[in-house]
């Protein structure tokens, strides 16, 4: 080789560095433009840590009476909403996901309709879905369940379709070849293949739904969020602390449960 390595190295890293520089420049530009438009009052920003500390100080000690009397039932309601919402999602989404899978439905039109439903469902935040359902069903947990369901369909549908598309045709054909009726084909050839993904997706979404349900009450769709909002409105900080603590515990428990159950089903 005629060129020396030092030169080759320069030619090698030069373009990469240029690309990186452009990338960082774009990010910095976006940052500068955004910061200029967002009206941030420096005094408020400087005050933030102090204000936060003040809030946390006022939260202590936690209101234990409030915890058992009000928070516990409300947390249970939250869990019910999340669970029922997830179950409703699974029931509705399963057929939709089957219809949205390439290896089952050849008709592109139907698949696109399914895809559209999934994308639309995912694009709207559960809080906004909750607004709609509160307008329809009135305030209360029914709106919460519907909102959780509407938001989850897209997530579950997308992942489930992918799982179905990965299932192999051979195993299904093996069951068809022995002359089994369609129900058996489904149960013995198809379901065993997607069962692990199905359960795993369901658990994952349930975990997410627990977190999301915790805030639906803010727009009146049931659960702990309503209590949180009213406690904050009346500046009952020890109660707020009790609520936050119980949400934290429930979320951690749900996560722990889900990670361990998922290990079992996969």
């Amino acid at each position, binding site marked *: 080789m005629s060129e020396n390595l030092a030169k080759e190295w320069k030619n090698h890293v030069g373009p990469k560095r240029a690309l990186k520089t452009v990338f960082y420049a774009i990010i910095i530009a976006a940052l500068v433009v955004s910061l200029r438009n967002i009206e941030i009052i420096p005094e408020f920003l400087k005050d933030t840590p102090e204000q936060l500390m003040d809030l946390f100080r006022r939260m202590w000690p936690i209101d234990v009476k409030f915890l058992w009397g009000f928070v516990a039932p409300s947390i249970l309601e939250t869990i019910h909403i999340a669970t029922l919402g997830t179950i409703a999602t699974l029931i509705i989404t399963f057929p939709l996901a089957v219809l949205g899978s390439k290896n089952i439905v050849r008709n592109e039109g139907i698949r696109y309709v399914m895809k559209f439903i999934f*994308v639309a469902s995912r694009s709207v935040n559960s809080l906004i879905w909750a607004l709609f359902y509160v*307008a329809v*069903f009135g305030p209360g947990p029914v709106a919460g369940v519907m909102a959780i369901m509407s938001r989850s369909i897209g997530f579950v549908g997308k992942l489930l379709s992918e799982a179905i598309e990965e299932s192999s045709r051979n195993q299904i054909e093996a069951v068809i070849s022995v002359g089994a009726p369609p129900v058996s084909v489904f149960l013995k050839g198809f379901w065993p293949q997607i069962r692990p993904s199905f359960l795993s997706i369901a658990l994952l979404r349930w975990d997410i739904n627990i977190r999301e349900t915790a805030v639906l009450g803010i727009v009146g769709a*049931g659960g702990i969020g309503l209590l949180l909002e009213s406690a904050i409105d009346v500046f009952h900080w020890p109660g707020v602390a009790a609520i936050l603590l119980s949400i934290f515990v429930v979320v951690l428990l749900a996560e722990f449960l889900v990670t361990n159950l998922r290990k079992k089903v996969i």
Partner: protein
Amino acid sequence: MDALTRRVLKTQEPVPTGGMEKVRRFFRFYGVQILLFLFVVYVLFALSRLGISPKRISEGFTQGKVFLSRLFPPDFITRWDDIRHDMLESLEIAVVASIIGILLSLPLGLLGARNLMPSVVTWPVRLFISLARAFNPIIIGIIFVKAVGFGPLAGLLTLSVASVGFIGKLFIEAVEEISMKQVEAVRASGASFLSVIRFGVLPQVSARFIGFGMYQFDSNLRNSTTLGIVGAGGIGGTLFAAYQRFDYRIVCAIVLLIIGLIILDEYVSERVRRVFQ
């Protein structure tokens, strides 16, 4: 286990003697059925607790038709200036929060990795990250609104914290999965701590980090469109105000715009991800 297998097993196993053994066999054969039964009981209980009944649902659907008719046609015009300003604000909050979140997650991710740091360091970092993750951004938003007042600053802080919660965790996991052999080789050359990180750790995780960043931006964008509902800036505020005034046609317009923005973002980030792979 199907009925046939169950019968075969039954005939082969010795007849149970102790009472405990009987109970155990019972659960081995019917465990799944029992779980399913308990599950159904729970579902029915929960349904009744929440007051959900077919009647309630069908009433809702009649009401739903009325509501749907009041959503259309969407009204983009009346509040267009507010909408435009707030949509941009949502976007800007997402951009800044993602950048801040990523910048903070880098050091925190390294500090929280148990294969690089002693537990006195990892423990508080991991606690902070799991706190930031446990709470929905809306809840963090409410607290920041109380601390710094209404407006985009609260949203910005909220999503920065939420970003640290998510990317921080992913980054810690990525760092904990690296091969320590490569790290050891760099250490053995006498490199400083910073160089060990730069040459032993970062090359192993940087490719995944870009993916995390993109993912977080998607998530921040979604959240920045709703944070306004609790007063933390962005389009959510205008949306909620219109909703409370029963201006459902404006609500509809805003929601359609949000969907459009999210779909556009998904398309772009898919593209960017492909470039980096």
